[in-house]
């Protein structure tokens, strides 16, 4: 089964991290990435820039409507994601619990809809 793991956290808290704290966080992510690659479940993943850099695009009546910012203003924002391929939801939950962001924010585990 393939799952997307969406890492949700409060962006302002991440922006408020000291350089040392930010470096430690990146180190934890690097370690997680290595471990999961070695385990053979990691298919990809990216960190996303903050929602202040987001652009939302909609098409209504053939017209492209572009606006600044994320689709919805929420308390937590998606800051990155992983794509993993593992046995079942129990393994996915176990992997999600190891993502560093799980300890400060939340991880939304979404099965991939195979088309």
């Amino acid at each position, binding site marked *: *089964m393939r*799952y997307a793991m969406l890492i949700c956290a409060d962006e302002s808290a991440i922006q408020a991290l000291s350089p040392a704290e930010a470096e430690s966080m990146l180190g934890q992510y690097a370690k997680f990435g290595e471990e999961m690659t070695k385990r053979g479940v990691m298919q990809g993943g990216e960190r996303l820039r903050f929602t202040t850099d987001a652009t939302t695009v909609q098409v209504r009546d053939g017209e492209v409507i572009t606006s600044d910012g994320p689709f919805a203003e929420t308390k937590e924002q998606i800051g990155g994601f992983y794509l993993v391929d593992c*046995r*079942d*939801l*129990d393994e*996915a*939950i176990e992997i999600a619990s190891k993502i560093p962001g799980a300890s400060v924010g939340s991880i939304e*585990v979404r*099965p991939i809809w195979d088309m």
Partner: protein
Amino acid sequence: MSEPSAVGATDSDVARIVAETFRDEWGRIVATLIRQTHDWDLAEECAQDAFARALERWPGEGVPRNPGAWLTTTARNRAIDRLRRAATGASKLQEVAVTSGSDESNGQRDPATDELGLAESGVEDDRLRLIFTCCHPALAREAQVALTLRTLAGLSTTEIARAFLVPEPTMAQRLVRARRKIRNAGIPYRVPPGHLLSERTGAVLAVVYLLFNEGYSATQGAELVRAGLCTEAIRLARVLAELMPDEPEVLGLLALLLLTDARRAARVDATGDLVPLEQQDRSLWDQHSIAEGGERLDAALRLGRPGPYQIQAAIAACHARAATADATDWQEIAALYGALARMAPTSVVELNRAVAVGMADGPEAGLALVDALDRSGALSGYHLLPATRADLLRRLGRASDAAAAYREAIALTNTDAERRYLERRLVALTSRA
């Protein structure tokens, strides 16, 4: 079952046997078919078809010697038939053929016995797989409950909807969503491995306990249907105890349910009013349930790993052992609540401990605990807090304080039976003063 040779049985005999077999076998058949087909809807539909066919054929052909095996085989053949007819079923059909001869957890099954669905331990594993899957933490509690009642206990959607007082389409939708999530999210059909087992067992026990309480707390309205939930909960707890005989909390829960259910007949009077424990007619208590509950509790305690359900069962056993209300060993009960409060520190447990301490060490000691709870604000709005306070104040002779607390409790309660009970206490208090 009492049919030595069922050939020539009347239609009503057959109907009775089918109904009994349904209660005993439904969960097993569905659980096995889900493992073999990975398709929850198909499994339920084919199980239903098999029972319908039994009603058609058994009156003429006689009841087979092993009705459960007949039904399992019929249901499985029906599943293979349906998969064969569905063009997309080719790979699934392969799986049924393959999985019916092997098993992921123990590979040493005899394909011949399995063909008839007779590999007893394997079949029982399936029921355990089923309940753990129904109670997976990725499903909402209400979905866990509904799914357990439907797939394992075999209650109809109508019955479940009535028991939980929701419209039938709502319940049907809830079941559809839960089955869809199991399939789409990849919730595994298995008994969780060791490191997850105790946490997941907790969820299973919580579902069974909730079922029981839904039935037990019902005193009005759809009473009969809801009382049936107690029976179902006890039946499920028995299955779990049979399947996990080394899990003390499983035995503890079964003991607790039996000991609590033993008081059912004495709990409500002829007019439907609640009768408090100390005023119950103890001759109405079901001694058979009490004896079995006591045995189950002893078996649990012998395993040497106490837990909240075992302690609650021990408290229920203390009440059950007392020949009269006055003979209740309140010291023991207060000590047990103390142990429970350390293990599961909730405000409701603390309130119960206050009641027990009030009986063991006098109302003053109980009142001190209730006042501390009151100050914490954790139970604000819960009618049993002022009701308990009122009772302790009454025993201390502080009639006007007690009356005020009863009035507070009456304003907060939301069932008629409890309101009438509290009003009677208030009247008794003011007429004596």
